[in-house]
């Protein structure tokens, strides 16, 4: 599986489920190029918590697509543990999902799709490719 070209944070997942074209363009771009997009697990859970039950089906359809990869944090304490860094980044960005998404973006050197670019610029920097939706 190729490295993701975009990371979708909670706001991007909400925007997808609500028909915002900028997200559609980005995920279609990845699928057409034979690439993948990453959905951090924390963002997926936040999106489920914020969307109505009727909108959950849209997330299910997105997740079924082979070009979409849900990324879970490494949890092996004392060996490979992403939790401390993700937690620290969440403290800087102001949201747990934003922290996990920024972590995945830097790990994968992937572009970022978000409704709150201001929250992640602090860690990603001004030059990082961000699509604001």
């Amino acid at each position, binding site marked *: *599986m190729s490295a993701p*070209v975009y990371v979708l944070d909670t706001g991007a997942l909400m925007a*997808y*489920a*609500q*028909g915002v*074209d900028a997200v*559609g*363009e980005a*995920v*279609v*771009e*990845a*699928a*057409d*190029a*034979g*690439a993948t997009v*990453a959905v951090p697990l924390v963002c997926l859970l936040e999106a489920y918590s914020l969307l109505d039950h009727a909108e959950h*089906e*849209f997330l299910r*359809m*997105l997740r*079924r*697509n*082979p*070009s979409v*990869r*849900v*990324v*879970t*944090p*490494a*949890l092996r304490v004392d060996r*490979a543990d*992403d939790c*401390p*860094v993700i937690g*620290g*980044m969440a403290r*800087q960005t102001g949201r747990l999902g934003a922290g996990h998404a920024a*972590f*995945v*973006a*830097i*790990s*994968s*050197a*992937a*572009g970022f799709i978000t409704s709150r670019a201001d929250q992640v610029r*602090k*860690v*990603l*920097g001004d*030059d*990082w*490719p961000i699509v604001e939706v």
Partner: protein
Amino acid sequence: MSRRVTISVPDDVAEQLAALPARQVSAYVTEALRRRRISDDMRAALRAAGHREFPYDPEGAMRRLAARQVTPEMRDAAIARVAELLDCPVDEVRADFDRPNAA
């Protein structure tokens, strides 16, 4: 399981297939169709969520993605920024980011 099918294709596509080693034609066509199915399924998911139609454009997609790549310099700067914000050694933070993501 596999099934033999006969199809007609334009001359330029026929030439492309003829240039492949004979035993690789089926695998090549299968891969191309599977990739197209992923794109079609993505559009179906988007339509269900109320998005407009997007034209199938693999070459344009690759060109646009190439223009928005994260450079090694951007990544290095972000890692240094995180290390400073978290008050951690850069090498330690870099090791966290360089670990392959669990998926």
